[in-house]
């Protein structure tokens, strides 16, 4: 256990120290310019921007995220299945094939239902 978790924690520490350290050092090295209000405006290709409240609320993104979660769970159930499929394919291969086929069939039907119902459309 230890020789798999410890390297990851050490690497995480190294990355964070490297990132934060370099950010701090480069902020020292860089020039210090006067912060004029125009300079600090968010970059809007020169046109004075509207306030952020006026953005239209795009509903499409969270529907993609929801269908991603649901199909991700399907992929998660496939992983343990791949482990035991090839080993005992002789004695219970058919049984495994049918059980996973049913599961995948239901979810492929869900995908095509979403496709037909326009869940995947991008206006």
């Amino acid at each position, binding site marked *: 256990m230890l020789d798999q*978790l410890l390297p990851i*924690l050490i690497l995480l520490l190294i990355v964070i120290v490297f990132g934060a350290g370099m950010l701090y050092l480069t902020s020292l090295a860089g020039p210090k310019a006067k912060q004029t209000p125009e300079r600090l405006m968010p970059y809007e290709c020169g046109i004075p921007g509207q306030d952020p409240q006026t953005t239209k609320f795009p509903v499409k993104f969270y*529907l993609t995220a929801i269908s991603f979660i649901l199909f991700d*769970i399907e992929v998660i159930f496939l992983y*343990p*299945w791949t482990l035991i499929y090839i080993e005992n394919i002789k004695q219970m291969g058919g049984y495994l094939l049918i059980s996973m086929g049913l599961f995948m069939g*239901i*979810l492929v039907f869900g995908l095509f239902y979403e496709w037909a*119902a326009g*869940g995947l459309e991008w206006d």
Partner: protein
Amino acid sequence: MGSYDVIFYILSIVSLGAALGVIFFPSPIYSALMLAITMSGLAAMFFTLEAYFLAGVQLIVYAGAVVVLFVMVLMLFDLRKESQPFSGQKISNFFKAGIIAAASMALIIPLSTVFFIRTEKTKPVTTVDLAGTLFTKYVFAFEAIGILLLVVLVGALALAKSRGGTHE
């Protein structure tokens, strides 16, 4: 106090601290990021329990999908800092007594036995055992999850398509 225990204590402090952050940060986007840290901390704790496959799945499903959905939805709402995030309604005394009783029981029992029962780490449960049990003993539940996912998909679609309100 081997190095295994030190890692366990560090990870539990990080996870519990981030979990406290989830409920005490006024701006919801910060609490969503704290939730992501809690999930990754729990994935690391699954590592200490030698449930490697579960740690990976926890990272993929929770830290990489569910909390990303939370962060995305919160960013779409574009909420700034909440004025007063805590609901001020009074909690009846009976309810308070119940909470305190449950909390103390849940803490005292495991804490008290820490000094007497000494559980040794056994041979880990490998992913092949997990897969073997999943597809033999729990195969009905596995198919039921498939149907549940289909129902949830149809429900989410209906919710997203509806304009909300009574027209059409």
